[in-house]
């Protein structure tokens, strides 16, 4: 990590969240063409990625670490069902502990360390001041479930998919910052079931092809893809469960505040095969940037204008942008010389 974690900022109420100049420069801008369409946009998550980029390490820890961990604690306190795991997923959750602890301690040794003597492990998270001695694989030696334990110490939501009969099932996860979907609702569903609400993609065969690729992912060969939406205010937790507290914010956008209120929300999704359980770990690492900050990069501003202007109506609707989409296009048009 090039940037040390900043003191805690908020993703609710007074929204004190900000991006440093460096965080802006490494923002994972998702639009690779002037027109955005759904596609099977999956690629190898090869290590090490470009220096300083969000793809440099397997898991990106950045300046928002402390803020995101504090936000996760609030959400879990309000609603413990944001972390769920079916009984048969225990081993997969331990796989995740191993993967996350090994990666964090190797990639950020100044912040995390892991020492092992056989199955006796010692974990030190210096950022959160957590030290733990536990027995690998023995859930009774941790203060909470393995999934919640590790989930509270790593940025991003996680779903753990069980693979059976050439399909994937959402049988475990810790999800506190979803882009309007619910783990409790999707729990136990298959790949095509939980993607049910998505428009256009099924007819184009996108999910069928993606699933074939995902079920063939091998140990040691993680892949990634990006997804995006727009969020009003720097709100991490846009879940159906809390809709009453954020849904109406969509009506608060005006031409005067659009640049400050509307945030591009990008998810870097990494898929990695878990060796002991054969489950797939799906991490959803969310990055937020206000339009105001985004337009400091003229290329991004221009491209974003074109992508927004040509966004198919079913996507505008599905992503929940209908109320303020015209204001976004109008605001961005000033950065596009074609206009």
């Amino acid at each position: 990590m090039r940037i040390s974690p900043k003191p805690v900022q908020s993703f609710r109420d007074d929204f004190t969240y900000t991006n440093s100049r460096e965080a802006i420069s490494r923002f994972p801008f998702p639009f690779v063409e002037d027109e955005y369409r759904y596609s099977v946009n999956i690629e190898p998550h090869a290590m090490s990625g470009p220096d300083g980029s969000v793809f440099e390490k397997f898991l990106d820890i950045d300046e928002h670490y402390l803020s995101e961990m504090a936000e996760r604690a609030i959400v879990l306190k309000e609603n413990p069902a944001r972390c769920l795991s079916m009984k048969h997923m225990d081993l997969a959750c331990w796989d995740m502990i191993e993967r996350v602890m090994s990666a964090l301690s190797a990639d950020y040794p100044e912040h995390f360390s892991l020492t092992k003597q056989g199955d006796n492990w010692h974990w030190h998270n210096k950022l959160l001041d957590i030290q733990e001695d536990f027995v690998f694989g023995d859930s009774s030696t941790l203060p909470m479930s393995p999934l919640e334990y590790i989930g509270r110490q790593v940025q991003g939501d996680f779903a753990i998919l069980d693979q059976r009969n050439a399909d994937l099932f959402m049988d475990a996860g810790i999800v506190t910052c979803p882009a309007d979907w619910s783990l409790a609702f999707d729990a136990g569903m298959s790949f095509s079931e939980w993607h049910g609400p998505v428009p256009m993609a099924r007819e184009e065969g996108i999910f069928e092809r993606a699933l074939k690729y995902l079920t063939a992912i091998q140990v040691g060969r993680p892949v990634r893809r990006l997804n995006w939406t727009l969020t009003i205010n720097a709100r991490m937790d846009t879940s159906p469960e809390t809709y009453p507290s954020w849904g109406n914010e969509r009506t608060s956008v005006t031409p005067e505040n659009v640049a400050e209120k509307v945030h591009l929300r990008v998810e870097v999704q990494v898929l990695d095969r878990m060796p002991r359980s054969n489950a797939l770990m799906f991490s959803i690492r969310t990055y937020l940037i206000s339009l105001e900050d985004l337009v400091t990069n003229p290329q991004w501003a221009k491209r974003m204008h074109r992508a927004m202007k040509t966004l198919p109506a079913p996507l505008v609707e599905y992503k929940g942008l209908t109320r303020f989409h015209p204001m976004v296009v109008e605001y961005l048009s000033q950065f596009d010389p074609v206009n």
Partner: protein
Amino acid sequence: MSTDQIKVRVAAVAQVAPMIREFTLTAVTGSLYPFSPGSHVVVEMPGEQKIYRNAYSLLSDSHDASAYRIAVRLQDNSRGGSVFMHQQVKEGDELLISPPANLFIPQWNAQKHILLAAGVGITPFMSYLPEMQRRQADFELHYLFRSKQTGAYQLELAEQLGQRFFSYDSDQAQRCNISELLADRPLGTHIYICGPEGLIKDVQSVAEQLGWPDSVIHFEEFAAPKPGKPFTVELKSTGKTVQVGESESLLEALEEAEVAVPNLCRGGVCGQCATPVAEGEIEHRDNYLSVDEKARQDCVMPCVSRAHSDRLVLDI
């Protein structure tokens, strides 16, 4: 050597049946990946004429990844890998293997598991058994072999599994009746088969008669890369030619020759690498092009697809 191959040392070789040898493999540096029951690795064998790549199931307890064990049956009339493993490979040798992959994992939600092994097909079940015992799963192992050739581990299995173990030695005229094996099983029974295609077919047809759904019948599959024969590609615009070896993809060969082709997934699903073809017969292996598009023979996905013909002319 592909980037994620693992270099292993042969720590021990043992004859476990007249035609079957067992190899214990340890990491040369670092440690081996943990693995799940039913996993296999692809072992690369540098033969004199060509490199062989064979998939072998891991025999060890999945809780112990300090070493991997595999067992190799000397195949009749084989020119390939099994002869190499039996005749060339000795203790102390080094080999390259892939990380473990698994297309034959136990269905832990099954009420009952019937494991049906024939000959060297016992291997994937060797990693099932310790985990099934730990989970106190309800299972039976039915093991078909010819003691003059195969039958590895039968004594230790009989001892460990007691009532759960059934052996059929055809060299002693013992036969397994598949209809009886499947009759009167409770709902939620799953069957796993590792053996010759004939055996799999027999089980499938009996199961169909009994009305078992396909989803409870599992047979071993390997994720070994389908071998491809070498061929030549030519670029129509410049006349440049590039050789594609059997163990590299067309995309990799083009990249090696500094011909840039846009790509993303490198697995035949995203469509980015689509490349027009002017001449030659394409062997399509992707999941991107439709049946009609494939039939037209004018576009190839070089990340996975190859040529049936010796020469392929790309229209780039």
